[in-house]
């Protein structure tokens, strides 16, 4: 690899412990990871293995109990919530399993929301979102409210919102969980293409076997700990 390696996110022996009826649950245990810019990482593991918790740690949405997290080189533990919010807004894109879109905003307004909060001028926002919509196959749906979009279309709008601001990384937590298999594969294709064409960094949590098979880097979690971290050559065209 000749290209320069830039770390998008790094964790150092990070733990997240929840109190649960007086019992401590180690949702994430002693995870040390490094994800480079441009990687496409699939985070796999059974239910309760800590995928969501790890993603939230990687995105600065929750603070670790122990250990440290760097996003784009900035260490999070010392930050106040306001600073972490700012960091999320500027460096991280999120795609959640559900509740991704505001029902009162159109597809375009949803997709441009982060840009708007960052103060990007209206013209530029619109141009970027429209371009991206075209690229991911939802061109022409800009003015629809989420209730008038299919589940797959809604998730694409969410992907567009996450990607459009060119963040250091995009975290997708089971974005296909509510989709049928065809739409799931299509959404994965969209993200893979964006990863390859635009170099967007993706960390994608799933327990869908077919999606795992297409991963170039697969991190398996068991009981909050990394069980395996394997890389494969590109599966593109395979």
């Amino acid at each position, binding site marked *: 690899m000749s290209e320069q390696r830039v770390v998008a996110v790094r964790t150092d022996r990070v733990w997240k412990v929840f109190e649960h009826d007086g019992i401590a649950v180690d949702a994430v245990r002693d995870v040390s990871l490094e994800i480079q810019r441009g990687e496409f990482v699939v985070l796999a593991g059974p239910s309760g293995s800590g995928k*969501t918790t790890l993603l*939230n740690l990687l*995105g600065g*949405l*929750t603070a670790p109990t122990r250990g440290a997290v760097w996003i784009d080189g900035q260490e999070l533990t010392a930050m106040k919530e*306001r600073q972490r*919010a*700012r*960091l*999320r*807004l*500027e460096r*991280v894109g*999120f795609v*959640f399993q*559900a*509740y*991704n879109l*505001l*029902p*009162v*905003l159109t597809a375009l*307004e949803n997709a441009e*929301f*982060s840009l*708007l*909060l960052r*103060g990007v001028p209206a013209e530029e926002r619109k141009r970027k979102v429209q371009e991206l919509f075209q690229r991911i196959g939802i061109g022409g749906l800009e003015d629809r409210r989420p209730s008038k979009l299919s589940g797959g279309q809604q998730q694409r709008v969410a992907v567009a*919102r996450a990607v459009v601001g060119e963040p250091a990384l995009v975290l997708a937590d089971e974005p296909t969980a509510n989709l049928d298999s065809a739409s799931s594969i299509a959404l994965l294709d969209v993200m893979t293409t964006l990863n390859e064409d635009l170099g967007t960094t993706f960390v994608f949590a799933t327990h869908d076997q077919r999606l795992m098979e297409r991963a170039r880097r697969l991190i398996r979690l068991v009981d909050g700990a990394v069980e395996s971290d394997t890389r494969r050559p590109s599966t593109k065209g395979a």
Partner: protein
Amino acid sequence: MAARPWWRIGWRNLGRNRRRSLITIAALAVGYFSVVLLVGWWDGVVVEMINNGTGILSGQLQVHSAAYLPDRNVYETIGGPDGTDVTAIIAGVTADPAVEGAAPRVYGGGLVSFGNATTAAAFLGIDPELEPRVSRLMDALSSGRPPARGTNEILVGVEMARILGVEPGAEVVVVAPAVDGSLGNDLFVVSGVFTSGLADLDRTFALLPIDALQALMVLDPGRVHEIAAAVPDPWDAPAAATRLHSALGATDGALAVESWTDLRPELVEYAQLSQSFQWVLLVIVFGMAIFGVANTMLMATFERRHEFALLLALGAAPRGIVWSVVVEAIALGAIGLLVGAAVTGPVLVWWHNAPPDLSWLVGDFTMAGALVRPVLRVEYPWSMAVQSALALFATAALAALYPAMRAARVPPADTLSGR
């Protein structure tokens, strides 16, 4: 950070649960309507009370010899024993811009007899031409007509007429102590009977032409006890009294110029009491509204907690979320105000110009010694209309604050994973 997206979200959220929004809007509109209308009606009652308390007999402003009140000593005529140029004083009083008319008066006391019946009476000598510009006592006579100048005629109250058993045309004996120490007495013909609705007046008051009463009491034509004046807006009277005090040269201390606020402090107190009552009403109505709006906003924000969590996860500032909720509540307030004002305005105009009469329901009543008709006549409560509008916005914004702050404190990670 731009506030506009929050405005947009707040405004559009308003339309999500139309029925709930409409009910809240209706509650605010009804609150506004009730406060403004009740206050308008209460203002109307106070105005009527002041008008009746001052307009039936006393007038809104009076000029006396400084020593006349409070004893109403019959010797203390304006200008002393030599009297004064009555026409000149009346002209002077009428010259004030706030004054509409003025009339001279002589007061006396004595007895009225008819046959075997005798009753004590307060005599009021009036100028039959000038008096109607100041008082309404002779406006609605239950029978007969006012006494005419230059005649021995007397107008008695309905209760006195009953006690004496007289009707217009009856000849009564009037006895009154004169200022020279003698006892004046003469025959008078009852010209008419008045009904003021005020028991004291109807029982004890009798009106005589001023010249006849002066003759009976041995007072020269230049000797009067009082110049009473009408000030159409009663609240202008204190300022007019101050102006007239210097305009009439009363600064030497011989003359006293008093407005009804000096003469009838209980009416002023009543007006002030009703002012504080209005504030209590405002606080109660909008205090209740606060809980209504807060309830709506709590339900709405609870339903949308996933959306707030999403926005916070994306990196939105909590104050943006607070703002979107407050905007929604203020929009509710604004629409409530528009609807409220649209309903209140026409009713105000209607009840100002053609007040529904409720006397069939409750009859007349007196308040602070003044007669009040039970009509729903409203004054235009401008200041209260504005204050209620502000109170309505404050209510909406205040009620939204707690739900808004809760919305902004939603824990994003847990909420989004459905915890």
